[in-house]
């Protein structure tokens, strides 16, 4: 059961071979047994989950089931859920029980899915290793002394360790793709504006985008069908006709044939992504995956994204600038942490925020405050925004020559816990391949494509033009039909 696809689970539920309650209990049992060593979940609430599972069973019995009815889903703790602690991995919100549901949570609830729990994450999604959480670091099931990747590490690990069939995450600079790659699962960041940000606790508003985690591209498509869609409460939500993201899974591209399902596909490989910083084990796994795409009929061409090197510097201006402002609401007045002792109002603010936020969050607030402050705005913030446009133009140019860009997600496989905590710059450089898609607002995904040193997973990065999620999923699905990297289970979690 733990390795079944969403389609298989839905069929089993429909045929009453298994109930939603049994499925949920099974996941809760695995979490209870296995999560102590992983720390993927911040909150589980079996009572609430089983209540939803019983409702799902009734709905199945009544014949009103959809593809996700009765399916347990683990939500990143950045999505607020009514009645659930919604902490964002922070002491600041450790006691915050949300009075409302995020749009994404609402969508899953409406589909009859079961909230299995809230997953661990870097505090306020600021991190690339899921080590900055107030609730302790997430551990990688492939090697518990390694990081899970971040910031959505808990969700990636929940899926990797088969604690949950599927999960949600958010991606501001790689926070879905990076932990998906390091933990050996599939993760998709859609085009900016596809998934509503309402109820998704903001880190950097112009970059944040929610997306799914699953074990296969086919499952991602099912999840995205539920998560995506217009929401009037997010004014950046795109008003587009609903689409079926599974529609191109099996449909060969124009020019494809049975033996060459990716015939006609032009895969662009940016030379900038295969430079000095890329570890050789990751490079060889990714190159093999690109060869596989070629075998499936794709043509591979070299493309250029000349401003790639500037994506980290510009991101570390833009994201902290937005974050410094987005996190000003945590002031100890209306909800969340308030320092127990203080002299006056200003002291209450300063102590509340000093005690409520962890070191990385404070570091980014300070960077953001500085780059927006008087006299520095043009040199940093405006400059970074101009570079953002150059980076977006790089992609526009590249997509004139190719249909999809393929490359690595991360420069290395999962590194040791604690290895980069004391060196923020080294930590930030982990995001070098993923950030550009956020700056440009493009859809991008990571799928398992092999293993590097010490048997740690490697991800293949696929970046598409705007609104090409269905095609990305189709390419990934065809790759997964020809390979079994995505089906590998870390030892001890089978």
């Amino acid at each position, binding site marked *: 059961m733990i390795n079944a696809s969403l389609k298989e689970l839905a069929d089993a539920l429909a045929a009453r071979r298994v109930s939603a309650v049994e499925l949920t209990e099974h996941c809760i049992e695995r979490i209870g047994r296995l999560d102590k060593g992983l720390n993927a979940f911040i909150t589980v609430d079996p009572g609430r989950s089983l209540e939803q599972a019983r409702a799902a069973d009734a709905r199945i019995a009544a014949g009103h089931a959809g593809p996700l009815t009765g399916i347990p889903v683990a939500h990143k703790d950045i999505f607020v859920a009514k009645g659930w602690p919604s902490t964002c991995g922070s002491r600041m919100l450790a006691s915050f*029980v949300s009075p409302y549901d995020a749009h994404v949570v609402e969508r899953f609830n409406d589909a009859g899915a079961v909230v299995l729990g809230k997953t661990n994450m870097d505090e306020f999604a600021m991190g690339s290793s899921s080590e900055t959480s107030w609730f302790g670091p997430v551990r990688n099931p492939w090697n518990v002394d390694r990081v899970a990747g971040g910031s959505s590490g808990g969700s990636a690990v929940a899926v990797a360790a088969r604690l949950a069939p599927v999960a949600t995450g958010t991606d501001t600079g790689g926070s879905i793709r990076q932990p998906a790659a390091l933990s050996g699962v599939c993760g998709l960041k859609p085009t*900016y504006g596809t998934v509503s940000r309402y109820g998704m606790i903001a880190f950097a508003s112009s970059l944040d985008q929610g997306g799914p985690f699953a074990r296969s591209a086919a499952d991602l498509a099912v999840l995205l069908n539920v998560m995506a869609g217009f929401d009037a409460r997010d*004014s950046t939500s795109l008003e587009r006709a609903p689409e079926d993201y599974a529609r191109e899974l099996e449909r060969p591209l124009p020019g494809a044939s049975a033996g060459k399902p990716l015939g006609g596909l032009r895969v662009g490989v940016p030379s900038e992504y295969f430079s000095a910083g890329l570890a050789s084990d990751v490079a060889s796994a990714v190159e093999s995956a690109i060869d596989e795409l070629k075998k499936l009929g794709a043509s591979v061409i070299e493309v250029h994204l000349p401003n790639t090197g500037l994506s980290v510097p510009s991101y570390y201006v833009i994201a902290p600038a937005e974050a410094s402002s987005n996190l000003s609401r945590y002031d100890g007045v*209306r*909800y969340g942490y308030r320092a127990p002792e203080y002299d006056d109002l200003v002291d*209450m603010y300063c102590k509340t925020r000093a005690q409520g936020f962890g070191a990385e969050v404070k570091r980014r607030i300070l960077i953001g405050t500085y780059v927006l402050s008087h006299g520095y705005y043009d040199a940093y913030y405006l400059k970074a925004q101009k570079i953002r*446009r150059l980076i977006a133009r790089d992609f526009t140019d590249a997509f004139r020559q190719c249909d999809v860009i393929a490359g690595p997600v991360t420069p290395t496989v999962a590194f040791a816990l604690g290895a980069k905590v004391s060196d923020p710059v080294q930590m930030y450089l982990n995001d070098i391949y993923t950030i550009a898609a956020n700056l440009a607002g493009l859809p991008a995904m990571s799928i398992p494509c092999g293993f590097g040193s010490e048997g740690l997973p490697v991800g293949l990065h696929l970046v598409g033009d705007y609104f090409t999620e269905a095609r990305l999923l189709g390419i990934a699905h065809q790759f997964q039909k020809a390979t079994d990297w995505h089906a590998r289970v870390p030892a001890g979690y089978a």
Partner: protein
Amino acid sequence: MSLPIDQVKRIAHLARIAVTDAEAEAVQADLNRIFALIEEMNAVDTSGIEPMAHARDLTVRLRADEVREGDQHEAFQAVAPQVEAGLYLVPKVIE
């Protein structure tokens, strides 16, 4: 760029984050390394480039002027640190 310690403290205060002298010094070292990375931006000429504030060049969607929210203050204040008579309480604001 090297960020002087009084600047670090000024920013911290602007952001309403209390820092001890030792913390300020630790942060100063981190920030200086981070700004060295950030300043790699200066290598590229961006004159004439339009700044990009959003992921897509779109315009905002407007809402109809309708009231759709009712009183929820009890639910909202259930998670508040300190309330009385429907008001959030804070240390005295001195004007």
